[in-house]
């Protein structure tokens, strides 16, 4: 059964069509890599999944539950949007850690705020907060930052900040974890540590949608590759096919340009 089904998503900003009939589906534990040049709509697609943008057309279905249907009611309440967003995690290109919180608090914050809405919060406050803390500390350990837990973002390198951001996105156990070019803002020597963390997540069967310019990495990590151009899915399939024997002219040209670099 598919965890995520994206059907015919389209989105325009004014006159510009950014996404046209984009669709794919993702099984539990699978990784999908979305490649394509800048301006092809990859980021907008992720933003639609995370309800930062509202698609003009199409559907988003998670675990057979339709979260969004452009044919139905599109003006969701804040509460509905918040609930929908919890199905997804998003790791930004520019990390977007909260500068006034330590690494640990960055990971804990959303969970702590969410826990207040639990009916048993008052009664079990201490236990709940301890669980959240332990979970956060565990995630930071998982991304190799146990010793940096109490440092503030500006005291961390870019790669370390991005790893904190990954831990933060994992803290609420989303069904699908999305990455928006997670290494594009990093110095080349720091990309490795972040990619390694993402590969480790893939090995643990984390369901992920990864927008990336790292072709070698995409080939390694993905079960499916989607090549987008001009807001369209031009080619999709297993990495061996899309990278090994691309069928579409546009895909071939795109990959050629990347192999030259």
């Amino acid at each position: 059964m598919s965890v995520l089904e994206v059907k015919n998503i389209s989105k325009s900003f004014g006159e510009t069509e950014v996404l046209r009939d984009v669709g794919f589906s993702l099984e539990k534990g699978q990784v999908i890599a979305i490649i394509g040049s800048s301006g092809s709509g990859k980021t907008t697609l992720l933003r639609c999944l995370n309800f930062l943008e509202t698609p003009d057309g199409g559907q988003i279905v998670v675990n057979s539950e339709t979260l969004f249907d452009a044919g139905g009611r599109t003006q969701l309440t804040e509460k509905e949007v918040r609930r929908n967003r919890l199905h997804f995690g998003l790791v930004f290109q520019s990390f977007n850690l909260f500068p006034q919180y330590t690494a640990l608090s960055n990971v804990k914050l959303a969970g702590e705020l969410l826990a207040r809405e639990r009916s048993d919060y008052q009664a079990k406050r201490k236990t709940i907060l301890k669980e959240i803390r332990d979970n956060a500390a565990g995630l930071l350990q998982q991304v190799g930052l146990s010793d940096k837990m109490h440092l503030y973002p500006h005291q961390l390198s870019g790669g370390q900040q991005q790893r904190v951001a990954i831990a933060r996105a994992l803290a609420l156990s989303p069904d699908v974890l999305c990455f928006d070019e997670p290494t594009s803002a990093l110095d080349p020597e720091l990309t490795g540590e972040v990619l390694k963390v993402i590969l480790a997540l893939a090995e643990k069967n984390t369901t992920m949608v990864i927008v990336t310019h790292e072709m070698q990495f995409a080939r390694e990590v993905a079960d499916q590759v989607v090549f987008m151009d001009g807001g369209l899915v031009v080619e999709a399939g297993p990495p061996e096919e899309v990278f090994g024997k691309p069928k579409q002219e546009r895909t071939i040209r795109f990959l050629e340009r990347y192999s030259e670099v």
Partner: protein
Amino acid sequence: MFQTVLASLNEGFLKTLEIFGLTLVGAFPLGLILAFGSTSPFRPLKYLVKFIVWCVRGTPLMLQLLIIYYGPGLILGNNWWGTSSAGRFTAAVVAFIINYSCYFSEIYRGGIEGVPKGQSEAGQVLGMTKGQIFSRVIFLQVIKRIVPPMGNEIITLVKDTSLARVIAVYEVIWNGQTFIKASGIIWPLFFTGVYYLLFSGILTLLLGRLEKKLDFFRV
């Protein structure tokens, strides 16, 4: 003589401090509300607030004091401030709050707009509410950004309080000046400068300390 002057100036400076303190208490929150107005996506509200801010920042504070104190009596035929010194004091504080909240609102606006959009988006994708994002993520970053310009305005306010004398609020300069007529001495008026210097010196130190306190993170 020195004792008499000092007692009188102290009393006047207390009034100065009262205007100063009450203005801040009123203008800090009101300025924030105006900032929300001027950044509102609801156009009519946005333009209304921008118009008010333009009027208030575009005219002298002295004129605003006169209009607010005399306006109700002369224009509406109802001087709701009364004729007591307490009424004049209240009118002065109201004028100061309106004036300073407009300046503060622009500082807040700059601070709010200066926080990268990614910060609230990061909060959004983590399922936070708008209120939580503002209070837990944005607010402190705004404070950190606005402490220096706010400090400037606060120091300016210390000295602007002296304008209250145009509607006969007995602040420190008023009291200093009375000695010219009453005793034929001018040094008490000059001596009021010492009060301003000391007080703005203390404020500068406090603001510096606040800036240091917010040094634990960078924006």
